[in-house]
């Protein structure tokens, strides 16, 4: 395998409801990241984009994103109907074939365009589940209930996760929720989808995340301390909730194993935990010790969840911890689907 590193990360302003068009959201992020890595468009061998039509309500919505790239002369480019983290995976595979050395990947989403709790329901079995319109939050609440009943998660642990995330978010200018609230205070809040309280659910955002990655011969030109991808893997579980133990995530465990997470100490983890209980389930499934690993220093997806970009943002935020020298070994993770159905995990190292 070729050594590949994340050398730059930029996220657009996360907002609760932007009036910008998706293209206008992407353009400045692309300009900024090219500047950050000190490269030209022509230095990018491969572009890959992650987004979802049902987030914007338009078929082929990703097509206009090509307009934001200045794709002339024509570019080598691809798109995944997945979170941008999987766009990063496609680019990583492409670099492994030797057909590209430097890639720019991005994910974007406009959660405010429609009712995402309803739209996400359309991921479910179209014949027997989706027509019931269960609502995505309800499914996640079922997952939380299963974990609580199994004794792997407590409501207090969930509140602790929220308390820490809000506190960390105070240091991150690009979030939609932050504050200083202790667990007792949070546990006094009413339930919105029992056992989930409003703060256990993510702050939905409109946003963009972009990453530049490259091979060993150029990484140091673009970044003082690149985040080397030492392992990366993604796995999926059955969708049918009745076929799964919702108190854990088999696919996260498998991806973590294949990415080599537990081979050494994890300094920092940026997990794409969109609901508070996800963090606890994921850490347990992935073999991450939450007492010794710094969890989501960015505040995580709970405080800003731009759909289809939030997973890639975890990769970017984990890489930032390496860039800044705060960590030597970081774990990045993204998930999609109901109740942590599909997971991608990468181990990033500074050395």
């Amino acid at each position: 395998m070729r050594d590949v590193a994340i050398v730059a990360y930029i996220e657009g302003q996360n907002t609760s409801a932007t009036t910008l068009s998706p293209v206008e959201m992407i353009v400045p992020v692309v300009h900024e990241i090219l500047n950050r890595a000190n490269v030209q468009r022509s230095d990018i061998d491969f572009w890959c984009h992650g987004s979802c039509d049902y987030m914007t309500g338009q078929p082929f919505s990703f097509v206009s994103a090509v307009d934001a790239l200045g794709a002339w002369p024509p570019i080598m480019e691809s798109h995944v109907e997945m979170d941008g983290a999987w766009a990063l995976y496609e680019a990583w595979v492409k670099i492994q074939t030797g057909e590209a050395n430097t890639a720019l990947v991005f994910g974007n989403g406009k959660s405010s365009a429609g009712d995402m709790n309803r739209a996400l329901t359309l991921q479910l079995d179209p014949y027997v589940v989706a027509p019931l319109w269960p609502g995505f939050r309800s499914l996640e609440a079922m997952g939380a209930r299963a974990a609580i009943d199994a004794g792997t998660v407590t409501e207090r642990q969930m509140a602790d996760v929220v308390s820490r995330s809000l506190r960390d978010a105070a240091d991150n200018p690009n979030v939609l929720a932050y504050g200083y609230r202790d667990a007792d205070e949070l546990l006094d809040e009413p339930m919105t989808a029992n056992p989930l309280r409003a703060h256990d659910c993510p702050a939905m955002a409109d946003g963009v995340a972009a990453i530049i990655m490259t091979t060993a011969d150029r990484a140091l030109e673009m970044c003082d301390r690149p985040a080397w991808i030492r392992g990366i893997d993604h796995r999926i579980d059955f969708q049918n909730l009745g076929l799964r133990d919702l108190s854990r995530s088999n696919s996260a465990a498998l991806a973590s194993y294949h990415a080599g997470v537990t081979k050494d100490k994890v300094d920092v983890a940026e997990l794409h935990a969109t609901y508070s209980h996800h963090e606890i389930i994921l850490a347990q499934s992935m073999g991450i010790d939450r007492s010794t690993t710094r969890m989501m220093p960015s505040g995580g997806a709970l405080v800003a969840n731009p759909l289809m970009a939030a997973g890639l943002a975890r990769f970017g935020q984990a890489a930032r911890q390496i860039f800044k020298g705060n960590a030597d070994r970081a774990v990045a993770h993204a998930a999609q689907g109901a109740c942590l159905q599909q997971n991608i995990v990468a181990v990033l190292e500074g050395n």
Partner: protein
Amino acid sequence: MALHRCAVVGVGQTHHTSCRGDVSIAGLVREAVDRALLDANMTLADIDAIVIGKAPDMLEGVMMPELWLTDSLAASGKPLFRVHTAGSVGGSTAIVAAQHVMSGLHKRVLTIAFEKQSDGNAMWALSVPLPFSMPVHAGAGGYFSPIVRSYIRRSGAPSHIGAMVAVKDRTNALKNPYAHLHEDHWTLEKAMESPMLWDPIRFVETCPSSDGAIALVLASEDVADKMPGKKAWVHSTAMRSEPTMFAGRNQVSPRAGEMCAEDVFRKAGITDPLKQIDAVEMYVPFSWFEPMWLENLGFAPKDQGWRFVEDGVTEMTGALPVNASGGVLSSNPIGASGMLRFGEAALQVMGKAGEHQIDGARTALGHAYGGGSQFFAMWVVGSEKN
């Protein structure tokens, strides 16, 4: 950079038709998958990773349907990847899957593309009004028809060329049991009388709307070498994109298509495509795109593509047979159409195309495009290792 070799070792497709009301989306997909696995003498348990592609989710109304299809593909615990690059998606998906092997990452990869247009309302799904445009197009034909008119004006092609391609593809489809349209009554005279739907595009020159799926099993060299059957070695793959509309854009022969062809031929060591390519499976949803793509791909000189058609060069018996399978003009399950081109090219060099086999085909091109003629995906496959 040394690439790992990759071979197509199994091809499976459904019978394409306007409405497969007898199966679910999952059932349709499994039909293609089971045939591909049978062809490769494998089971789902042998598969390391799955790569799925389809056109917009709104066509069926299922968001990211691969999440749900995991269950019917027994994919739990595996990597499953979803590609969406508009009409070229079937081709792009096969390429992404091939790269999973060419990178040395996996040894047995299953790739799938499908569309079940009858499960949704495509016209509704594709008609979202926006203030930038007048709703005057009346579908894809209305979008591409002015471009065809530009080609005719530029090249001086006579009016019957589109009809000739249509008759050829519909006739070829009679030899393909999986094709959607099996119409044995077409002659050039009759085709010329076919009504103009989107003048200058006649009804016979348009593609049907199909339900269908295709799956390919891709294998690494060590795995493929141990298999007794015939394989299609992937000699090269290429993708290129450009914006849909910009000032001064050549819509008749987009630069992205030219660059993609140059790249795929260069990487396959092909210097004279007309001589070295034995069969082409080209994405031709409207018949006039055959002469247009012949030029764009570098098979014919500028403005001369129509002469190839007129001279019968692209007939099954010609020097450069194009769409022996009947092509998109005879079956169009949108998201699957690109992979059908890639799969049919593989079948040709495997010598497994049945009645529509081109004798002695050793090297074939699979071609797909999408969006406003802006996304291109191509591969060259051969009967021998490259």
